[in-house]
């Protein structure tokens, strides 16, 4: 319950408002260390405050997997993206939030340094990714967007979360 009380930032996110003539996609932007990332808003289920108390650790899991929480009756794993990508210090303060994602029918939470905004980007203005430059493997990056001189790294969160690197899914099916 304490988890829900502290989830002051919980907000329902509306799906993309109307079909624009050009291809306008909406992205939720968040910070990891000094970098700014964007993910498809339709993959985001909700945003919650970070509550360390509510997390149950899982033994012998990689350090970026903080554990699991109870999200209204379902068990949801929590991944700290900052630890996974070694970006800045994984500090937990009042800005630290958990973005609950719903990708491919699976629900999971990622810990980030704070969400900034929801922005619309014209896909024409998205530039391809150079072959280096990010700790995230470029195959998980759909492109780079620009807003007010800031660079936004657009992540294909679905592919990333399903990838072997994350170890979230049983790779060997038995």
């Amino acid at each position, binding site marked *: 319950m304490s988890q829900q009380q502290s989830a002051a930032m919980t907000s329902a996110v509306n799906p993309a408002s109307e079909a624009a003539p050009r291809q306008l996609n909406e992205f939720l932007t968040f910070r990891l260390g000094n970098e700014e990332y964007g993910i498809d808003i339709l993959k985001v289920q909700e945003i919650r405050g970070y509550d360390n*108390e509510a997390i149950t650790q899982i033994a012998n899991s990689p350090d970026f997997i903080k554990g699991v929480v109870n999200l209204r009756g379902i068990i949801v794993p929590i991944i700290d993206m900052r630890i996974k990508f070694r970006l800045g210090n994984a500090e937990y303060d009042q800005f630290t939030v958990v973005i609950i994602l719903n990708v491919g029918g699976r*629900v999971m939470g990622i810990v980030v340094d704070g969400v900034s905004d929801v922005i619309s980007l014209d896909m024409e203005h998205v530039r391809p990714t150079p072959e280096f430059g990010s700790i995230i493997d470029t195959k998980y990056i759909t492109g780079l967007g620009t807003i007010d001189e800031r660079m936004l790294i657009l992540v294909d969160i679905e592919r990333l979360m399903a990838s072997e690197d994350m170890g979230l899914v049983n790779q060997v099916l038995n």
Partner: protein
Amino acid sequence: MSADLEQFYEVFFEESSELLAEMEACLLGLDVNSPSTEDLNAIFRAAHSIKGGAGTFGFTDMTEMTHMLETLLDRLRKGELKVRSEMVDAFLRAGDVIKDQLAGHRGDGAADPIVVGEVSNELQRFSEESADVTAVDHVSNASQAVCIDELRQSAGIVAIERPAATENLQHAVYQIEFSTIGLSDESKENLFFNLKQQGSVEAHPQSVDNEVCRMYLTTSVPEEDIWETLAFAVNPAHLKIEKCTEVGGYQAGTFAVATTEAVNDSVPHIEAKPSSSAETDSAPYGFFSGAPAAPQEFVQQTQSESDQSSNAADQINSVASSNLNAKAVASVETNSIRVSIGKVDQMINLVGELVITQAMLAQTASEIDPVISEKLQSGMSHLERNTRDLQEAVMSIRMLPMSFVFSRYPRVVRDLAAKLNKKVELKTVGEGTELDKGLIEKIADPLTHLVRNSLDHGIELPEKRIAAGKLAKGTITLRAFQQGGSIVIEVGDDGAGLNREKILAKARERGLQVRDDMPDQEVWMLIFEAGFSTADKVTDVSGRGVGMDVVKRNIQSMGGRVEVNSVYGVGTRITIRLPLTLAILDGLSVTVGDQMFIVPLTYITESLQPSENDIRTISGRGRVVQVRGEYLPVIALYEAFNIRPKSTEIKDGILVILDADGHKAAMLVDELVGQHQVVIKSLESNYRRVHGVSGATIMGDGKVALILDTTGLVMSTQ
């Protein structure tokens, strides 16, 4: 018994509709040029399951249709025939026919007998395509007969739908007609002898030519039994049985047949039996004559063709509409609804949340001065009781007694035993054992397969049994009981047992990796391979090698296991182990460091505080503890889960003695907290499997606690 079965009709209808939809989807997705065997297998399995269900409820028209489907599919599957787009079309049409037949049994419309005939003709033609050319004449005969047969049955639906009516021990007169082609004199005599045992036989007045034999039989035996007696000797495709005297669907049936047989037969049919008309005239006439009647078009057709008197037509009309009325009544009475498990699960989750919220409120309320909050307190205690009741009620939705499944089988066994000419008694034990509803629904199909297999392959013919020094009557035992955290369901027979050599030989033939020195257990498991069958010939009961792989797949998908025990000549027992429920578990909560774990109570034999003297080390590392003369390996949870415990010394902690399938171990924890009933949540639905953890649950404070995989932990020490 028929009344018992009726409560499952709805389930069967739903299941069949689902299977049909699945079959259609597979068919539509099938690439005609290079059909995948997986798809063909899926279609085949769907048809097979529908057939099994239809057989259970005695819907013979559906059984026959699906059997034809299956025969053709089987040849496609084995690569004996090439898939062509016409075949897919035929399959789809057959699917539609089955859908119509299903609707017919539901009491809502009926299959068009003409379409049924066409489709079955077509299927027959495809499946006999590469057969001997000399048989062509015979084939067309056969398919015509089948077509007529189908007509008879679809028109006679009502009588099948109300088995009670046919089980009346009234004497009835049946007109029996069959082709004697291919029957030896000896078998004819045998047949007459059998018939005479069931009642008195009279020759049909305008009957006997060389190829077709007609007769009247007066008997109290239900029609199915006569059918079975005859079908044993005569090709069922050439066999017709019609009930003459009783009011009901069979009269209409006679007419429907008459239509297709067109000119020659229909008039004499009616006119030759004035006595029956007189009998049927009285009751229904006048009551329903104004009501609309679906079979009317047949009736009118018959009328125009045979130029019947209006009186007779009226009579038929009234009979037909009385059938319709009976159907309408039957379809109204459903007192259950089918709700998706997802919705029930959602309810269970919500109730779980409610209980947690209630506990939190109670905690807060108890801190308020009781003088001020007296009303609040009493309200809280009401709330507590109500939430508990609600939780129990919601949980109980999922639990059903095994009798729900077991009561399907007496009919299956009886019918099948009669068909196979075997004597079998079915014993059921432990019908009261409760099982999760999700599991109950899923276990029915595999169990049906197992029971049918036991009957067909296990139990021998009476003569054989007597020769082997057994009772002529075989026994099939269905047993359900709870053992630890699982429900065990056994299907046992005292039949021939599995033949090791035969299975190994068959496995080699199919190119499976086998050795002669394989342990029995592994040999028996070979029977679960896809397409594996040691039966010498394919019957409509079993022997196609489908089924056992479905059984295994279904049981595994439920998180269960199958075991086979068999002694050649003595019998076979197939044991299915299923988790008790997918939902709830009795557990002991323990803590290590600041983490809480749930240990399933069923694995715990005791817990104790060890004394230093009981603890020994093996080669300085592995620790064992002596408990009542036994040395048990110690599993330290803090090691297994990399947690910092309060103390690493065994003597400071508590040992929980676990017994998993006969293997024992002592688990070291810091403290015991309490006993709970916990709702099992899957870790894997959003995460992956974690070693040593079988699931998770949500505790009263909203935190997640992991449920230990006791078996896994214990086994890792062995």
